[in-house]
């Protein structure tokens, strides 16, 4: 099949090619850092959209899971002197195991109940980060050394950049395959109606676990990369501000759209930097974006893109169009 130039796939390939080339084309340290943050947020957003958009589960703990990935990775380096390449997967595994534990409340709760229960959990996790001082170094956070990529002839910053690039590209492709697989269709059935999903033979426990596990995996890996990039980990990176950042990323791009997640993850970093540079209130800007998009542009930016580019052929899984019912 011919690759249309304006399909999400072609746009994605172009974006990643550009991201690969940016440092080589002379993007300075600051821009590389910003691009790096974008890729990290793309990973988080893609994961969060799997659980929130495709599976329809309103989870407010994702910022904390992101933090657990960051803390897990950085604390293993700090306390045991383990190398980053080992700590990153271990931190992600910690995040996944905690994300999976949240499946049990999620089996009984949905909607507002699930949102608030997971929010309460997130706040407890944040409290542990602040108060378990002997392990987490408390409210002030802690630094970790630069990650060396020797013997590769590449600086720590560039090493992190290309690591994030590779991981981000890999996870986006993984997410694309998941969405198109049986699991992805089961997620959508879950979000439509849990009871009818069950009657279609979809195992709630298995697919909720898959949705929570995947989003936690994405958040955990992103957290580890975040720690490696900033070389600093502190609780305030994972509080309510991080939560609304992630929610805005999902809603801005488009709930239930993979391309939207990529767009959202990139855009929130731009908006955040712009907001800080112009000294506007982050709370008003991001709260306002969330409100406005939920009220007036429910499908997010991908809906606009689709309107102007007919060849944008992604199926949106949270689209309001009625689906045909099973006989």
């Amino acid at each position, binding site marked *: 099949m011919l690759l249309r130039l304006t399909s999400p796939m072609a746009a994605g390939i172009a974006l990643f090619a550009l991201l690969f080339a940016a440092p080589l084309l002379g993007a300075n340290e600051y821009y590389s850092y910003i691009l790096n943050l974008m890729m990290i947020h793309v990973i988080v957003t893609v994961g969060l959209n799997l659980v929130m958009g495709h599976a329809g589960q309103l989870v407010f703990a994702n910022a904390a899971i992101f933090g657990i990935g960051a803390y897990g990775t950085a604390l293993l380096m700090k306390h045991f002197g383990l190398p980053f390449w080992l700590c990153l997967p271990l931190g992600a595994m910690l995040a996944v195991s905690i994300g999976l534990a949240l499946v049990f409340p999620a089996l009984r709760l949905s909607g507002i109940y699930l*949102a608030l229960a997971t929010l309460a959990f997130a706040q407890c996790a944040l409290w542990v980060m602040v108060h378990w001082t002997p392990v987490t170094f408390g409210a002030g956070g802690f630094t970790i050394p630069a990650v060396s990529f020797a013997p590769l002839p590449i600086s720590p910053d560039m090493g992190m950049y290309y690591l994030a690039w590779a991981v981000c590209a890999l996870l986006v492709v993984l997410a694309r395959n998941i969405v198109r697989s049986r699991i992805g269709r089961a997620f959508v059935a879950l979000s439509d109606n849990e009871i009818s999903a069950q009657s279609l033979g979809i195992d709630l426990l298995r697919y909720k676990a898959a949705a929570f596990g995947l989003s936690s995996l994405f958040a955990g890996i992103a957290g580890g990369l975040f720690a490696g990039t900033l070389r600093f980990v502190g609780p305030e990176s994972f509080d309510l501000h991080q939560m609304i950042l992630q929610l805005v990323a999902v809603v801005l791009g488009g709930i239930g759209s993979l391309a939207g997640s990529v767009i959202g993850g990139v855009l929130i970093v731009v908006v955040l930097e712009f907001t800080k540079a112009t000294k506007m209130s982050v709370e*008003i800007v991001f709260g306002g974006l969330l409100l406005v998009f*939920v009220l007036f542009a429910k499908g997010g930016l991908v809906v606009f893109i689709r309107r102007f580019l007919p060849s944008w052929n992604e199926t949106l899984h949270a689209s309001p169009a009625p689906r045909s019912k099973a006989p």
Partner: protein
Amino acid sequence: MKTQDMMIFGYLMATGLTTGALYALVAIGVVVVFRATGVVNFAHGEMFMIGGFLAWTAHVMFGLPFLVAFAAAVAGTFVLGIITYQTTFRPLASTGNQNAILLAMVGLSFVLKGIARDLWGGRGDYLSFPPLVSPTPVDIFGFMIMSQQLIVLGAAIAVMIGFWLFFRFTRAGKFMQATADNTKAARLVGLRVDRVFMLTFAVGAAIAGAAATLMAPLTLLYPDVGFSLFVKGFAAAALGGLGSIPGAIVGGFLLGVTEQLSANYIATGLQEVAAFILIFLVMIFIPNGLFGTAARRRV
């Protein structure tokens, strides 16, 4: 030694009951809106926070009497409740998408918090409120209790009674109750349920404004206080089953006392997370709350 233990215990109970009464007021607002609309107002804490700042502006900045400040906070939050309804619930209710309503409320809560931060000082700035009466303790049954706490506790209970009277005896209160009970039937008797929902949001917010004004002399005001109080109010409401006003009141008192006792006898830091742990445990193990469906007459 024994008497000193008793003194501390008495003090903790008095503090717990006073803060508990305020949590109960916040919880009542959560429950009233939830019963009518099936939605938890995520921006409810911001109603509380802005109510507190409005009272501060009237009382401290403009030197108006406390009762006037109280009225200003209640009126201001009443309007804020209407704004919340108009910007979140009304435009999204017809879609039947609760997740969207909740997300809109999350957005609104951050906007309100940001506005408050701009208006009343940046992060880390705490505004203080003068005490209502001289801080001499009074002796009740051998317990030394701050007279200010007694006043606040009494006033909080008075607000609850006033609210109960409103629900029980005014037409508007009964219309709200009927709409919460059976929305379709409320439409069929000719009630404009959209107006009733708006009033429900407004009244819920106004109670939070009242609670904030009462709490202000006991604590400090800062933009993040809203989220913290929302969590406590929600925990109290969840403990009572989310749909029950008596449950919310009992939940509020229980939470207030638990916080004080756990902070003093287990670990200080627990006061901050007690509510979160409570929410998490209640939601998982007793989602219907302590009273659940047993509370038939719901007001």
